[in-house]
């Protein structure tokens, strides 16, 4: 049965059970409806949707939580000790600035040999998020939901939980869909106040008016639809209004932490005051970051495919006051992140959720000293840096690759950004060559025309 015929049939009983169950997806397209939610690639017949799709091959990871640490966290001070401290400690070395994550090393795989193509924040961010140093190209999250759709169509497929203190560098470009259809771009859900722009009227109106508006609109649209058989886009529009109504409930519910147990809240550091003062940025403590980590878990629980948790500006950009700033960044994020891993594991979600902790590049081993101010930090270093992943088919307790003895350059098993992208896609059951979008006669891919290698060594 083609989608067109399907629409034709359900349109007879517009508010039937079948409709509410099946017509929940957003539709996107020029015209012509063929194919269904099982179609191997979205976009057949000009229709794009976020219906769940089978991956190219079986895989463990169903969702992704990207904990993006803007600014370039210093590897040698956090994850890549020099010289050879891991030998003394045994196992994976994680800095004492991150005591909570240090206790979860058995869940995580650290890649110490990442390298990227630019030492400038904006360009390196484009590279990390989109695979090339260009604005206007799709981000990883957009590619993933383009490829896999989403399990819960009452919520956006790709959710961004941005920091109430402000947007990261490059702003909304960090979750744009570029040349992919706009339904694949990330949707910001706010952790404070209403989760979504225009989710509710700015000034509430009397129930009588709300009810009247909804009812009359439904009646008028039903007449409009009835008089125009054979036009499935009208069903899609009606469905979009119903989805909007459900979003009001579901988005609010997904982000409502009032039913979380006190133990959970405490574990994530919710309500805890900051323990240290940041020098070049304000440390609000773990409270809000913790809340957003819980929200990320709640979203993944509900079937959201891709969640990106942001920090404001670029707090990890420690050019001066390295120690104070790193401690402040860690104070804010370490406990929530570790709690997220523990919580996901406890709920049996870690196996199907790929958690990624990363910044756009690393920092130089050689200090940047400002003698007059008496402060020290580290400058950007794209040639060698660390990140870690956990869950979703990643082999915990792994350390992969190495930088030279100063931590300047990835020397052993270097991993490029395109390798990372191919690996993440692989964990989700997607092959980077097969996940493409036809555009002006070209097959666009996140890995462009690079020839990446899946880092199989960190796969479980």
């Amino acid at each position, binding site marked *: 049965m083609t989608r067109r015929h399907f629409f034709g049939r359900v349109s007879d009983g517009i508010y039937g059970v079948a409709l509410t169950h099946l017509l929940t997806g*957003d539709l996107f*397209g*020029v*015209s*012509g409806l063929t194919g269904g939610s099982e179609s191997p690639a979205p976009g057949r017949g000009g229709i794009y949707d976020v219906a769940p799709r089978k991956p190219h091959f079986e895989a463990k990871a169903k969702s992704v939580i990207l904990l993006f640490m803007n600014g370039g966290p210093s590897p040698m001070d956090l994850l890549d000790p020099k010289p050879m401290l891991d030998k003394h400690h045994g196992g994976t070395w994680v800095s004492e600035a991150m005591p909570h994550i240090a206790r979860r090393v058995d869940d995580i795989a650290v890649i110490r040999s990442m390298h990227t*193509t*630019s*030492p*400038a924040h*904006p*360009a390196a961010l484009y590279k990390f998020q989109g695979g090339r140093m*260009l*604005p*206007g190209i799709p981000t990883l999250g957009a590619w993933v939901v383009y490829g896999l759709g989403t399990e819960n169509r009452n919520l956006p497929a790709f959710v961004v939980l941005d920091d109430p*203190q*402000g947007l990261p560098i490059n702003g*909304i*470009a960090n979750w*744009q869909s*570029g040349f992919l*259809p*706009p*339904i694949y771009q990330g949707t*910001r859900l706010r952790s*404070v106040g209403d989760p*979504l*722009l*225009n989710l509710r*009227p*700015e*000034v509430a109106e009397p129930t*009588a*008016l709300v009810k*009247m*508006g909804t*009812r*009359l*609109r439904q009646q008028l649209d039903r007449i*409009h639809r009835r*008089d*125009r*058989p*054979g*036009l499935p*886009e*009208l069903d899609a529009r*009606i469905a*979009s*209004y119903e989805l*909007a109504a459900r*979003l009001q409930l579901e988005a609010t519910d997904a982000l409502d932490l009032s039913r979380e147990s006190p133990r959970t809240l405490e574990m994530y550091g919710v309500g805890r005051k900051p323990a240290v*003062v940041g*020098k*070049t*940025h*304000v440390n609000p403590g773990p409270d809000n970051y913790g809340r957003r980590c819980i929200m990320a878990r709640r979203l993944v629980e509900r079937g959201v495919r891709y969640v990106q948790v942001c920090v404001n500006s670029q707090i990890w950009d420690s050019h001066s006051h390295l120690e104070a700033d790193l401690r402040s960044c860690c104070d804010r994020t370490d406990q929530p992140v570790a709690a997220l891993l523990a919580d996901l594991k406890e709920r049996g979600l870690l196996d199907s959720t790929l958690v990624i902790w990363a910044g756009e590049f690393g920092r130089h081993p050689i200090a940047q000293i400002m003698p007059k101010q008496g*402060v020290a930090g580290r400058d950007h270093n*794209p040639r060698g840096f660390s990140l870690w992943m956990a869950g979703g088919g990643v082999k915990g307790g792994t350390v992969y690759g190495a930088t030279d003895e100063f931590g300047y350059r990835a020397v052993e098993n270097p991993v490029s950004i395109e390798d990372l992208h191919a690996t993440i896609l692989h964990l989700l059951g997607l092959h980077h060559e097969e996940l493409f979008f036809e555009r*002006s*006669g070209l097959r666009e891919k996140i890995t462009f025309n690079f020839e990446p290698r899946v880092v199989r060594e960190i796969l479980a």
Partner: protein
Amino acid sequence: MNLSSLQPTRDRLTRTAGLFLSLGLFFWIAWPGAASAPDEGGELPDREKFFREKVLPVFQEHCLRCHGEQLMMKELDLSNLSSVLKGSESGPVVVPGRVSESKLYQLIESGSMPPDLDGGLPEAQRATIKAWIESGLASGLEESAASQALNQHDVIPILLRHCTTCHGLRRQGNDLDLRSRASMVQGGKSGPALIPGKPDQSLMVEMIRSGKMPPKKRLFEVGVTPVSDSDLEKLRQWILQGAPEEDIRPDVAGTEPDPLVSDRDRRFWAFQPPRQVAPPAVEHGNQVVNPIDAFVLRKLEDRGLSLSAEADRLTLIRRASLDLTGLPPTPPEVRRFLEDREPRAYQRLIDRLLESGRYGERWGRYWLDVAGYSDHEGGKVNANGPGRKHAWRYRDYVIRSLNADKPYDRFLMEQIAGDELVDYETTPVITGEMVDNLIATGFLRMGPDSTGYELSFVEDRFDVIADEIEILGTGIMGMTLQCARCHSHKFDPIPQRDYFRLADLLKGALDEFDWLAGTPISEVVKFEQRVLPYVPPMTNPMRLLEQEKERKARNEVLEEQVKELQQALEERGRDLRDRVLEERLDQIAPALAQDLRLLLKTPEADRNSGQKSLAKEYMQLLTVTANELKERDAVYRREAGKLERKIAWLQHRQEAEPRIRALWDRGAPSPTYLLRRGDYLSPGRLVGPGVPSVLTDGRSPFRVEPPWPGSQKTGRRLALAKWLVDRNHPLTARVMVNRIWKHHFGRGIVETLGNFGKSGARPTHPELLDWLAVEFMNRSWSMKAIHRLMMTSRTYRQSSRVGPEQERLDPENRFLSRWPLKRMDGEALRDSLLRVSGRLDETPYGPPDPVFVRADGLSTAYEGERGWRRSIYLRQLRMNSPTTLDLFDYPTMNPNCTERAQSTVAPQALHLLNDATIRRLAADLARRVEGEAGDSLQAQVERLYWIVLSRPPTAEEQRLSLQSFRSAWKELGNGSRERQRVLAKLAHTLYNSAAFVYID
């Protein structure tokens, strides 16, 4: 200048250079031993001898026909060893010692090459090639660079990249010009730069080797990089060989058939001129109003269908008005049409709509999509980049041209070569035509371009040129030319050479080695501005001076007001800021907090050194941003928002100096080399100006002449423009009529508007497309004539209802068995909402209205005294477009948009339902209706439908609306204020109804 943006470029450069060097080194070390060649004692070096005696015969037999000196298919020439080593357009084809990495051998082994040989290359010959590669090309490779015969074209690209910015056309630092052998030998103040045969005594080599040139301190000022060791070595070798020059003519189209594009290639439907076609005979002759109907009917009849019934007048006027003006018809307009009982009433309606100034605003926007129009420069760092102060003149030019029905051929000529049409440089009087011509050239300045405001390197500039080629290709020619930048097109017969011939066509104005920047970025090299002064036609100089004075005076007044408001904003946030600070201080160590409190109380001038350093150290802690304050306090957010808007509005009203963002030929383009793999570090053969060969007959040379006698301009773009508007051009007319068709009928006859090539869609009605294209040209390229033709056709006037037959036999409406139901696009929706609410400010033209992005992400335009202006007059952003537009698929210009997507998503519903402005518009409409319709509820509801939907409600709609109204009003207590609220809700419900958003 933004230094951070330089980093990626520099990094990329060193990486590429590094890779290059290390590979070279690798081969040196890996295969020196293979030097024991098969045959010693000859005069030729071993590898030459081996190549000539063993390998070349194989190539001669099987390969050189295509990959020889003559044809150089894929830029590969296998006729001699040094050209083999240069590789093809996609890089090296042999890697000495490694058959598995040698593309040449891989293709032989897989049987792909030679293409016409059954069973592939005979085994013995295959073995020869294999042995040759495995032996490291019979070794001796280290000599190859040294003994490779070089000529001036091996070194000119190096000098262009690194030297001629200061020692070239625009500037002869130290009186030195390094653009030709002669000028190098002549040298400058310090003597000759070049002594043939003596590299180590040549000053230029010495200066580069010592690192004195290019001067390190100034590299970033002019966007030049240091010379790599391999390039320096190449320069040395050339000088050592005596600095030989060869008379190599740029590769241009000649009178011989083009070897790279065959006649078979040219036979593809889109590459042949549109044919004169007679409309076919049809059964349903009574349905034929004009030939369009005959073509459409013929296809329908083939499927057992015919045209649907004609739509009623109410439907037609709404459809036609929204199509042509982007606005719904007003009730008086509808009444006038209904009352016109003349047989030509509908034709008159179309004429009237075409005469409306709103037509140019509607259709101008479509053209701006094609041109990639933006009021922002764009950039690698920030997608918006700084504002383009003068772009709006081009936008106005487009709107005016469409309203005046400027013939499309003329429209293109002006935009592509306006500077080469009339001599404006030596004229005594500037005419309106000259001004228009120059404004039109803004077309090729619309792509994202950060090179005007920050330092750029050669490849950044080439990116700008590439974007313009893409815009020309997809927008005007329906060709994906951009694919041929790095290699010959994979689907279409466009060799990479053709791409660079086009680049050379633009070079008189867009020359990556002689680049115009927006601001002078260096004391050393003053880049010229990329704008020209705007001179109102026929204005005398005295009046100009006065105007300038007046402009400045007006701006000063505004500046004063801005300052006052800024102060007020500061005052308004003071208490809140203090509170936030106090809370922060409460969280830190008390002793430190105490010090900081004291610090805050001490005026900056009175602070001691300890306090000063404290202030520096805790700057972040002590800084409270405006956004933080807004997050904290909703009242402050609202008030500050208002003040900020006022400030932005006053700033917006300040008038920029009158300028034209233009493009003009500067008369001295640098030579163009094909770039292998699109890499500017791998120049290939020298090419001259030309157009894609497959679109010509392949025999007539493409002629370029100066635009008028004595002109300094090259005339290259003029030649391009003339070629494009030639009646035999296969694409220009087709692409444009197809675009117009798409906007009227919902789908192009060729569905891929920007790609008529092999990977694009085939036309559903090829004869109709040709007929329309020829008709377009016959009617002097009049776009309005084509609108008229399409809109008066019976096909256009069909009802949009889908019957069971149509659904079964033409499910996707590819054959137009009905009119396609359409959804309003973003600007039609926004403009219509404003219009029906009585809040559309229809003031045309001029600088764009500002757009604000609220802290929660909502983006809106400024509301003036008369409401809001049409969407085309808002600042066109590259990111964060006004939410109403953005949600309804307003395009992103990257670099342009040839076809918009259409989505139906929940955030659209949320926005129309909950956005405060849209609710306010509904209330405005309710007030308007009360004023116009009197007290009767029934009359009010009817009026509402007339205004919003341009029709009366049906009996059913009327009944439901009244019912809803009465019950809600009753629940609210039947008060008079409540009555207006319910009426507003009714209006708001209509705004959200499918009947409003969709067009029948």
